[in-house]
């Protein structure tokens, strides 16, 4: 019988209302996903904070590494022409 130490960690995501995406709210341990869902309901939506819940095993998430964040995200840094504010528009021209 696996004890509590073996219960996987689940990350919990809540859609707070229709029209919004799910957002991460926290995590919890549970023996399986169904139980994680029930516990997440009790822990993270006691005051009607959500209309939909996702639980994802933390081990299933692949994340970018904080150590490589410069090399990983820097390529976007010098491409300011991707933003509308980069462009000069003559005065008086509207709807642009």
């Amino acid at each position: 019988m696996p004890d509590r130490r073996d219960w996987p960690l689940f990350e919990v995501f809540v859609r707070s209302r229709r029209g919004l995406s799910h957002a991460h709210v926290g995590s919890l341990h549970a023996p399986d996903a169904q139980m994680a869902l029930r516990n997440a309901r009790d822990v993270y939506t006691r005051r009607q904070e959500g209309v939909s819940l996702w639980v994802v095993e933390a081990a299933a998430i692949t994340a970018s590494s904080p150590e490589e964040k410069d090399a990983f995200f820097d390529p976007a840094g010098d491409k300011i022409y991707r933003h509308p504010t980069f462009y000069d528009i003559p005065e008086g021209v509207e709807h642009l």
Partner: protein
Amino acid sequence: MYGNDFTAPQADGQDAVREGHEDFWRVVESDGRIEPRDEMPEDYRASLVRQIAQHAHSEIIGMQPEGEWISRAPSLRRKAILMAKVQDEAGHGLYLYAAAETLGVDRAELLDKLHSGKQKYSSIFNYPTLTWADIGTIGWLVDGAAIVNQVPLCRCSYGPYARAMIRVCKEESFHQRQGFEALYTLSHGTPEQKAMAQDAVDRWWWPSLMMFGPHDAESTHSEKSMAWGVKRFSNDELRQRFVDMTVPQAEALGLTLPDPDLRWNEERGHYDFGEIDFTELFEVIKGNGPCNQQRMARRRAAHEDGTWAREAAVAYAEKAQQHGRRTAVA
């Protein structure tokens, strides 16, 4: 509820080490947030684990003094409110254990440390709840003091702790208001009810002031915590803020606070108050409070008594998995 992050005085005067960790200090000094897998000084990590764990332990031990009154609440309304509050405390404990786990510790390991006495919980829970008025007083004074302490933690430098505190603070304001309302009902009831309310306030006032910790000059972890952006205001500043906001509330209740030196100081723009007997606080922290042993025994028993539920959850999950496999084959 609240985790006081202080211990009895000891030799620990080290300043936060500033060598190395350039990224860390750049983030902290620009009032940014450190996130779980960021590089951080080891003593920052260890100190946060200790503080968040102690805070989490306080939340779940804090269920005991109030839980004792669920079966004796004077009406169905009060019973429902108290159950919701005690359930919130369990939830707060979980948010905080989850925040601590992002620092590379295991919740089971933290619970072991609580059960073996290696980690502490807030000493405020080592006082007994003798009458129904204690429940109102805890909500008003103890949760009130907790809110004053916790609101600045919503901006602390460690992201997961700050986010947990935002949730906790939102829920605490219900705790404080329900306490004030329960106490107001008593203080405007029969003379016996009012006397019961006054007695509870007399017993909880000084322990509530002690929740802010020792005076700044004697506070062991303060300097480092300030440099790290974990602590934002000193113990004495927060205590003064609490006194200033509580005195007018006591007047609205028609109850007195048990301090003959409590008076408005026009010059300072604050209330002056009497000397706090910190020897009592340190005795309670050391384990000599009225309920230390009872709280720990109850916590260990609750954990052991819950073994069957944890085992049943695992058995159910295994069965569901086998059943799922069979249906998938069929």
